[in-house]
């Protein structure tokens, strides 16, 4: 069981580290908006979090694709 938990943590923080860090920053931004923006900030917080996370997913996968393409083309040379 502990090996499973360990491999999940390693996967989350190391293999997918950039995505995890990005998500944590998105959560922190959302928290800040909700606590500093009053009632309007709280009502916007979910939509802001959703927008940031969606952009993060697309950007992270684009970057992964570019990295793999660069590696594949350098391996062919």
């Amino acid at each position, binding site marked *: *069981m502990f090996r*499973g*938990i360990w491999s*999940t943590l390693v*996967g*989350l923080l190391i*293999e*997918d580290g950039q*995505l*995890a860090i990005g*998500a*944590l920053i998105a*959560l922190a931004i*959302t*928290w800040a908006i*909700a*606590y500093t923006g009053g009632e309007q900030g*709280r*009502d*916007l*917080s*979910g939509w802001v*979090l*959703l927008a940031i*996370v*969606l952009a*993060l*997913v*697309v950007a*992270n*996968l*684009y970057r*992964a*694709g*570019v*990295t*793999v*393409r660069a*590696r*594949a083309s350098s391996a062919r040379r």
Partner: protein
Amino acid sequence: MADNPRVDPITLAIHATPAFVASAVEFVEATTIVLAVGVTRGWRAPLLGTVAATVTLAVIIATLGVAIVTVVPENLLKGVVGALLLLFGLRWLRKAVLRFAGIVAIHDEELIYQREIAELRAQGLQRTHFDWVGFLVAYKAVLLEGTEVAFIVIAFGAAGGIALTAATIGAIAAGLFVIALGVALKKPLTMVPENWLKFGVGAMLCSFGVFWFAEALGMEWPGDALSIPLIVLAFLGASWLAVRMLRVLLPQGARVEARHV
């Protein structure tokens, strides 16, 4: 939602479906391994291993799960669970997108089943005593995957009340469904489109994560739980866009390990 004594079928379905789908993925993996042990070494030891793991899990859930849900304040629990769901969901979603784009190899239950059978045959079978190898392999598999199911139930049921009931019903239904399929077929469940399920579950985990984290901050979503399907659609749309984008970037795919991406 916990204060509402009426069971709204739509809310119940919204909360039970992700737990059903997510648990089904875990049950497919556990069933594949138990089937491999049963077919190669006989059924007594793996079935006893499965029962022992189920009892261990029940103890873990009864002590840890209920304590967490009842002792920790609801908003704090929603915030922490929401953040965790988002982190785990993003990981599932990313891997599913990379698999659909052909960058990472598709998870193959048939291959896992054949590999498990080969390993168990290589270890041999001594018929003089109880088959401890078969027992331990089944126990470990069911406990590992079951722990993930327990996490799913606690996470999806973190709001308490209907949510916890629905998540439990969803997980039990998934277990019964997958076990019945496994018993009927006595073969690995290769027809289950696992990457599609992981794709959907990843989107649902992310959606519940966003929904609960914002609720914990004091946001009131329009239509309450009815906004969850819209958030799921947004995640599915963005992921579909990412798959299309990766297929344009890498038309031949790459077939590399996820850790190298």
